[in-house]
């Protein structure tokens, strides 16, 4: 039985371009208080455009109805559990949105005099300090705009440190369970990618690693807990193996929400890591960004951090551009400041004890789901789960139903699907991350839904194969979209 959701009428809505009528508008500019300018005289006739063909022409009411109708076609955390593994879809506190919109923080130009930006620099300084405490690292840059951007920055820092020691080296080791961004990052930073296999417990095989690491290896990119939700318990030994050969340990901090307050990477051999403020620190995903990907480093790497660096001088915060050993800039200005404000608000609301509690609740929720459905789905790795658990569809596949089908059926039950077919090392993976946000009631509904679907697979697989049934849009033909791409509206 589907308890969480039932269908209701949803509005149809054409594209903006299809509801436009000539001359309609929803704006009102003030009367000009200066003389109007002859555009062709000012810019040169060839530089002035003709009308923007096809651009929207709608009234204010039509505009707000358009976007409100569109919004109702989306699922969202505020409607319920969003158990995307590795994505950490936790509640986004609204107070964070409110404080990011305070005039003195939002209407602040990046080049205004620094003595008139001390409040903003203080936000950055407090955030850096809190993140350093949480990670156990020594220094931080807040400049990267997202996780993958942080990864790139981190690997460039690895390269810079190794170059200063004599050679940048050639290879980056990446476990086969890693996020797809890791290999892409290593490649963009000019490194050759060497994949290393996980052992039967889903962890890095330490003996194999020891045999693989040589003087050509620049770093290992580890995710801890890894994408199976398993804590890499040998992290110290892994760091020793790397350090003994002059290589570094990079940590993808996407899963830091499983560790905050429990374990600090900086205390355990990690040299460089990035964080995702839009995961662990609750800033909204917004349908795919903006994020923020701070990079934390050990003291030895600090001189190479992107310029400018936040420093304290003569009782004031300053942005120091005189950084001769820096890897340079990775983004204009100082990073996604508005996201930093939100993350700091989250940290303030929780405090040290609250952050730890969020971690333990996240692990409790994941463990509860795992126990709730492990009789019905195949669990390929039996190591204890941290913040997420990963099943395989092998039992359901015997009935012709795959992880993607189960995911689509979950939609009918009122849930967003889990992460499908990732990590790659689990064939037909179901990767489930509830976060600390969910109550027992929501978790129970989810478990009930998963068990119910498992039964449907046995009794009526077609029901699952053709899901979703209750959405306004049924299964979307992604193959056709890619075969003949239509990427813009045309009259």
């Amino acid at each position, binding site marked *: 039985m589907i308890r969480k959701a039932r269908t209701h009428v949803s509005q149809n809505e054409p594209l903006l371009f299809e509801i436009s009528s000539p001359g309609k508008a929803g704006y009102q500019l003030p009367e000009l208080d200066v003389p109007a300018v002859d555009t062709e005289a000012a810019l040169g006739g060839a530089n002035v455009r003709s009308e923007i063909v096809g651009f929207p022409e709608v009234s204010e009411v039509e505009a707000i109805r358009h976007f409100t109708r*569109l919004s109702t076609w989306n699922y969202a955390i505020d409607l319920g559990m969003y158990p995307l593994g590795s994505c950490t879809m936790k509640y986004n506190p609204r107070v964070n949105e409110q404080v990011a919109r305070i005039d003195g923080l939002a209407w602040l130009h*990046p080049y205004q005099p620094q003595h008139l930006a001390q409040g903003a620099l203080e936000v950055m300084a407090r955030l850096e300090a809190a993140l350093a405490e949480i990670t156990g690292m020594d220094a931080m840059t807040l400049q990267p705009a997202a996780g993958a951007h942080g990864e790139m920055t981190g690997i460039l820092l690895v390269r810079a440190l190794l170059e200063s020691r004599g050679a940048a080296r050639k290879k980056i080791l990446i476990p086969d369970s890693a996020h797809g961004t890791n290999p892409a990052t290593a490649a963009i930073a000019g490194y050759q990618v060497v994949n290393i296999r996980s052992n039967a417990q889903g962890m890095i095989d330490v003996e194999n690693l020891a045999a693989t690491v040589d003087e050509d290896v620049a770093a290992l990119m580890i995710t801890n807990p890894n994408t199976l939700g398993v804590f890499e318990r040998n992290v110290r030994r892994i760091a020793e193996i790397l350090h003994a050969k002059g290589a570094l340990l990079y940590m993808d901090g996407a899963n830091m929400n499983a560790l905050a307050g429990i374990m600090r990477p900086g205390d355990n051999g990690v040299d460089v890591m990035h964080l995702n403020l839009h995961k662990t620190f609750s800033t909204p995903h917004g*349908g795919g960004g903006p994020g923020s990907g701070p990079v934390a480093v050990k003291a030895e790497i600090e001189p190479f951090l992107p310029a400018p660096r936040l420093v304290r001088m003569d009782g004031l915060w300053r942005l120091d551009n005189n950084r001769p050993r820096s890897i340079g800039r990775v983004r204009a200005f100082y990073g996604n400041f508005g996201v930093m404000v939100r993350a700091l608000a989250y940290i303030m609301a929780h405090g040290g004890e609250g952050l730890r509690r969020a971690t333990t609740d996240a692990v409790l929720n994941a463990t509860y789901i795992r126990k709730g459905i492990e009789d019905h789905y195949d669990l390929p790795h039996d190591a204890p789960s941290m913040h997420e658990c990963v099943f395989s569809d092998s039992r359901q596949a015997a009935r012709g139903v795959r992880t993607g089908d189960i995911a689509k059926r979950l939609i009918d039950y009122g849930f967003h699907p889990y992460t499908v077919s990732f990590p790659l090392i689990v064939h037909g993976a179901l990767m489930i991350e509830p976060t600390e946000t969910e109550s027992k009631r929501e978790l129970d509904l989810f478990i009930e839904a998963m068990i119910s679907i498992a039964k449907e697979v046995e009794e009526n697989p077609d029901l699952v194969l053709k899901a979703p049934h209750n959405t306004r849009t049924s299964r979307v033909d992604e193959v056709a979209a890619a075969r003949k791409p239509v990427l813009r509206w045309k009259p």
Partner: protein
Amino acid sequence: MLAACGVSSLEDLFAHLPEEVRLKRPLAIENGKSEYEIVDTFRALGARNAEGYACFLGAGSYFHYRPVLVDAVVSRSEFLTSYTPYQAEISQGTLTSIFEFQTMMCQLTGMDVANASMYDGSTAMAEAALMAVRINGRRKLLVARTVHPEYRQVLATYARNQDLTVEEFEYDRETGGADLADLAAKLSPEVAAVILQSPNFFGIVEDVRAAAEAAHGAGALLVDVFTEAVALGLLSPPAEADIVAGELQSFALPPSYGGPYAGVIATKDRFVRQIPGRLVGETVDTNGNRAFCLTLATREQHIRREKATSNICTNQALIALMATVFMTVYGKQGLRELAEQNLAKAHYLASKVLLRFSGPFFNEFVAAAEGIDAANEALLEKRIIGGLTIECWYRELPNATLLAATEMSRRADMDAVAQALAQARELSKVGAR
């Protein structure tokens, strides 16, 4: 729940972590604060940031009015608290709005296809350069010195690690526009792309067509960059370019001390397989209804891993939505009128100062400014933030200030800026005697 999990305490959940790796003390972060205390703290921090000042800074971040509809829309939970729209059946709202965004970007730039957004203008430019390298296999980038200095710094970071060469070409000291003779002299068969910004860092509208012809003559691509999107409402679209990379902050983003903003890359149909970032395409569902989904994912990191066109994953979807709402509210007629107001305001201010360059400009320009520090100090007394001193990037331009005026600039404040510049100039003349 603990019993169901087979443990007797929350601590037991972490029993498998080796003792030596665990943190054995509480985090040294103050106890959690109430909502009221949090709001109060940030209000106090905001009050230390020149709150309520008039500001004439531009240089890649502009003060434009944000229609209230923007926040009304992006505050909707369904947009704010959803993930990247991988599950198309329950993400049609986001997907449809991105498709509209891509379309409007094409309409504005004269390109065939635009992506779903990039981190910001600077990284969009760097990714556009890497895209050009993938397209023609050449290894050198020729960049105008009139491109935003921080954008060039970002490009340098990206290029260095891919062993790409970056060379800069000069600007005309009279007009402030790119020096096309220097460009011609530096073009060679190694050049993958010529990178030009218009309006450029000095606010000057560049001759994109001439630069494109020069680039194409040498078999290179032209990357056109913009930092002031409002200009697209009035200026001819850079249709001669091969790739357009820009910053959308002007479309409803407060300056927010430099971010979050959103970048975009647009290009010609034939280069679509090399464009980085997400793309939304139109298709149908099993009932034949129009539907949208993320497409051409085989370019992307989660499929291609180390062979991806870029490592970009999260982009700036909510910001792109803000820009979409902004463009919708202003629409065809409003965006032009907005641009015309910017032009009028800037030309009013310009008429009262000494212009450093003679080229055509949109809403930003360089003024000659003897004694600029004194002028800016005097303006701060009146709660006005004056222009940007650019000597740190252009040593040949001491005593110059980059001023931007927008529809939000008040006539009285502009008069004050002109007066402060004139007074400082007089004072420095007296000082020189």
